[in-house]
């Protein structure tokens, strides 16, 4: 039976009197990929910031795995499996590419000072496993040759890959990707689409903001269309794409 992993109800956010998100409601079912499309300024990234807790919402409800989470701080949401990437990539510049990935896994025993000194063996073993996993991930994202470079030295497209790789290292239940394909070369973008689908088969859920219509159609199970701060249309990608309202919003109603 299908379960809703994320449920958003009537979310509102104003910035100094200007409505950015105006009563957005939608749900994402477990083990699906939902695409979120809409014109610039429709409120997509604001919606991400509200869901993940970077902005305080003015009103509305957010449920994650059945639990109310609007008041939960970002890091706790990440700990229970909701992880995001950023539209403007945030590589941790003065850390190596490998270190960026090693940061991903949650609840590492070595993140507690007492374990470092009292249980060095446990920390070392865990670290070895994490490194192994990180190297595999780097291999997949074509970043292996740069593993010891500072992340700040990567190109824009590579930073985007790095960010997605780092998010995957957390073993998230649900991943929110903000324009994951922008600046990524087409071959690799195709490969990413394949990977995302594969991860879905293994139980992961995705919510993806993307403006490349071809890729988003290919990867999504359902598409949500956002306009003026609301989700005004949801459905199968082909249907949404051909809806006159979408066409209107993209080309202008005239």
């Amino acid at each position, binding site marked *: 039976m299908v379960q809703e992993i994320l449920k958003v109800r009537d979310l509102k956010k104003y910035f100094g009197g200007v409505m950015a998100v105006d009563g957005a409601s939608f749900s994402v079912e477990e083990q699906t990929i939902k695409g979120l499309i809409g014109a610039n300024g429709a409120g997509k990234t604001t919606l991400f910031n509200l869901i993940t807790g970077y902005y305080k919402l003015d009103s509305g409800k957010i449920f994650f795995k059945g639990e109310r989470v609007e008041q939960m701080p970002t890091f706790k949401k990440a700990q229970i499996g909701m992880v995001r990437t950023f539209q403007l990539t945030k590589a941790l510049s003065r850390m190596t590419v490998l270190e960026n990935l090693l940061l991903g896994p949650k609840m590492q025993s070595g993140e507690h000072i007492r374990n470092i000194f009292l249980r060095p063996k446990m920390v070392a073993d865990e670290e070895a496993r994490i490194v192994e996993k990180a190297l595999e991930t780097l291999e997949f994202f074509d970043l292996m040759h740069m593993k010891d470079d500072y992340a700040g030295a*990567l190109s*824009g497209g590579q930073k985007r890959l790095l960010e997605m790789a780092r998010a995957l290292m957390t073993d998230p239940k649900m991943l929110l990707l903000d324009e994951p394909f922008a600046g990524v070369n087409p071959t690799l973008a195709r490969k990413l689409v394949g990977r995302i689908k594969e991860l879905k088969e293994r139980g992961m859920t995705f919510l993806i903001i993307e403006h490349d219509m071809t890729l988003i159609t290919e990867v999504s199970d359902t598409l949500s269309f956002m306009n003026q701060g609301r989700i005004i249309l949801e459905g199968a990608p082909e249907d949404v*794409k051909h809806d006159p309202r979408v066409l209107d919003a*993209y080309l202008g109603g005239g």
Partner: protein
Amino acid sequence: MSILQVEGVVSGYTDIDILNGVSIHIGKGEIVSIIGPNGAGKSTLLKTIIGMLKPRSGSILFDGRDIAGMTTHNIVAQGMGFVPQEKNTFPSLTVMENLEMGAFLRHEFTDILNEVYHIFPVLKEKKNHRATTLSGGEIKMLAMGRAMMPEPQVLLLDEPTAGLSPKLREVVFEKIMDINGTGTTILMVEQNAKKALSISHRGYVLEMGENRFEGEGSTLLEDENVLKLYLGE
């Protein structure tokens, strides 16, 4: 003769090129629209022309002079105006002070002020209100009014109707035509492509930082390829 000619411009942010060689030209007195899917580099093009971003290569000729690499305030002094999509008014200044700042480079601005008040009567009504107290539509008007104050030869508009209700959008498009009627050349980036092209003399379609199509406004929209571009089929 073109008043603004952009040739093979490559530009972007620190580590990403957004524009990969864009060329456009605008004739004196024209309204030209640039449309294209999200992320095509439309706003980046405007920011490069106004000097907020330095082009990595290519030339930008404005009235015959190459302005590529000049500082923003010097480009403005040459006769270019710009209305950003957001952050386009000074919130703590009054409406009147906003307009005065627009005319920073001029000594005398009574005539143009009256013209701006004529086109946007609401600004005259609220001239002593602080910009923060204006509504979304009024802010757009103020932003355009501010940019008109130096009487620029070319006015660049970045998504002038974004975030406005359909009714207000109509009003803004009318105002754009009014401004054009005063002899100002207009280059705008717009998501509302249908309407924008319908009031434009010519249009360009950008995709992935490159020119895709170019032509008269009305013909562009009937082009199958343009539709495909937007919807990625």
